């Protein structure tokens, strides 16, 4: 503590803040420490007890101990280390109790000698091991394929993002018991399937990594373009996803797609302030005021993209879908005005994306780029080829894009019908209003 802090602390002692207020202040400080440290603590403890549910309980116990003790004793000098030590001590106690129980059983079977030294040695090794490995185990376990996607999302936000059940519930517009139950079930599923607390290796690793990145991207998108509800964006979720992507980039610095995802999210997030109008209505990319794009995030996005690209250039892997999408986003970020956009390059990037991750949504986006580079006619041919795609049956952007192309071709009446159809399909209130306006507006309005 510095001299000036000392003086301030003394002043506060003299006037004496009400104990309840002091207590609340400590509680908030504890919550902040928890937010920073919880993932590491849960990961470190899971390594000992080999069960996510038990690990989280033990970590929570340590948090409760902090809430009880810190208001009296003051927040310790290194609060993270305090929490970790407390949680680990409890974990080791638990393992020892179980071992003692196992030993009693073993004594009956005269099987003691072979077991005990191994257990102790393992325990010691566990404590010295690198916490970053533990975090990676936690990442892969929370996004394990035995879990449903909503379960992976909830578990990831809870265990890695440090969000409370209530925060997750509010972010996804579901009730708190729903989320709580989802998390309990997910932990049970992991235990039942005997999912080991390990990092996947070899071919399995690539697939499992894709699942991890997908979960983070999904969280970001839910915040960026809320699929339901009244708000067009929920920035808190975007920030949580972005933070997780940055954490992953630190944990897996050699994986190009991890940097690709981080780059994509940084650049998309850079537009957050520009994509809403004064009344909360959405503003589409090409109409946005680029002066409001966040240059710090764009710079960070470019840096992450460059890391991904140099890993691809020197490694065995070709460019992956996240890196390619980040490259597309960077084309927009580089253009000072919408008219300066290098649409030819964007078309080429969408073609590459369609090769590594073909999907009707990618085709739809390619069509938009083609319309900008080569005109609406070529684009309409691509879009019409998608008319029977089952995956796009209820996707509001298909009629919305088609409406745009038709309007540019002067087929106003058909365009209007498409916008009206798109407005019916979207579940987001703000987006519906935008589409309704476009359905009703006359052809010379933009």
């Amino acid at each position, binding site marked *: 503590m*510095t*001299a*000036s*802090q000392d003086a301030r602390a003394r002043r506060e002692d003299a006037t004496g803040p009400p104990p309840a207020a002091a207590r609340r202040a400590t509680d*908030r*400080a504890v*919550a*902040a*420490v928890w*937010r*920073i440290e919880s993932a590491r603590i849960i990961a470190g403890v899971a390594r000992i007890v080999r069960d996510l549910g038990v690990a989280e309980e033990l970590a929570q116990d340590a948090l409760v101990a902090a809430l009880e003790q810190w208001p009296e004793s003051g927040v310790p*000098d290194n*609060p993270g280390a305090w929490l970790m030590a407390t949680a680990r001590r409890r974990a080791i106690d638990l393992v020892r109790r179980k071992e003692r129980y196992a030993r009693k059983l073993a004594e009956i079977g005269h099987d003691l000698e072979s077991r005990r030294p191994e257990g102790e040695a393992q325990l010691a090794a566990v404590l010295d091991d690198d916490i970053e490995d533990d975090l990676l185990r936690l990442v892969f376990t929370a996004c394990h394929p035995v879990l449903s996607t909503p379960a992976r999302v909830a578990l990831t936000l809870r265990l890695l993002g*440090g969000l409370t059940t209530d925060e997750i519930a509010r972010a996804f517009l579901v009730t708190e018991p729903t989320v709580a139950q989802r998390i309990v079930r997910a932990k049970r599923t992991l235990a039942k399937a005997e999912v080991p607390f390990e990092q996947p290796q070899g071919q399995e690793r690539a697939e499992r990594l894709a699942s991890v990145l997908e979960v983070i991207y999904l969280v970001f998108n839910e915040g960026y373009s809320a699929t339901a509800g009244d708000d067009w964006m929920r*920035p808190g979720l975007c*920030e949580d996803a*972005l*933070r*997780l*992507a*940055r*954490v992953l980039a*630190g*944990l897996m610095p050699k994986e190009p797609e991890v940097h690709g995802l981080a780059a994509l999210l940084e650049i998309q997030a850079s537009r*957050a*302030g520009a994509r*809403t109008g004064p009344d909360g209505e959405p503003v589409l990319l090409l109409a946005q005021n680029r002066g*409001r794009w966040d240059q*710090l*995030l764009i710079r*960070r996005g470019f840096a992450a993209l460059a890391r991904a690209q140099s890993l691809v250039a020197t490694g065995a892997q070709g460019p992956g879908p996240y890196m390619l999408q980040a490259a597309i986003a960077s084309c927009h970020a580089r253009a000072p005005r919408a008219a300066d956009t290098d649409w030819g390059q964007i078309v080429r990037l969408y073609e590459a994306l369609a090769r590594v991750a073909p999907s009707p949504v990618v085709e739809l986006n390619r069509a938009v780029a083609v319309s900008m580079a080569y005109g609406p006619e070529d684009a309409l041919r691509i879009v019409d080829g998608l008319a029977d795609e089952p995956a796009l049956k209820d996707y509001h952007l298909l009629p919305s894009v088609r409406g745009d192309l038709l309007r540019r071709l002067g087929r106003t009446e058909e365009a209007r019908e498409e916008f009206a159809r798109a407005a019916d399909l979207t579940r987001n209130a703000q987006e519906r209003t935008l589409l309704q306006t476009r359905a009703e507006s006359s052809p010379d309005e933009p």
Partner: protein
Amino acid sequence: MRYMMLIEPDLERSPKDGMPSQEIMDEMGKLLEEMTKSGVLLDTAGLKPPEEAVRVTSERGKLSVVDGPFTESKELVGGYLIAQVKSKEEALEWANRFLKVHGEEWVITVELREIMEG
């Protein structure tokens, strides 16, 4: 939410050369790496000493230029961090950690200012 953390050392009451020791620099490096890996630190930089600074003021439209150092102000910004956090308390916790790195030789203040978004 994002916070701009302005680092304001009191140079009169801190080590004479105004330079943090190697030990502090090493610890600070570790902390900044931890902040980066936690997805918190977005940007940081140190600023050159106030002797080289210059101030331009507009007094109701009348411009004046003053070269540093500025003897009247005791604490001047010596660097900044931009941090992405979940709450003011989290920003405070990181600021505490930043200050603890400086040990007992320094008198130093971190001013936390939330960045306006959108």
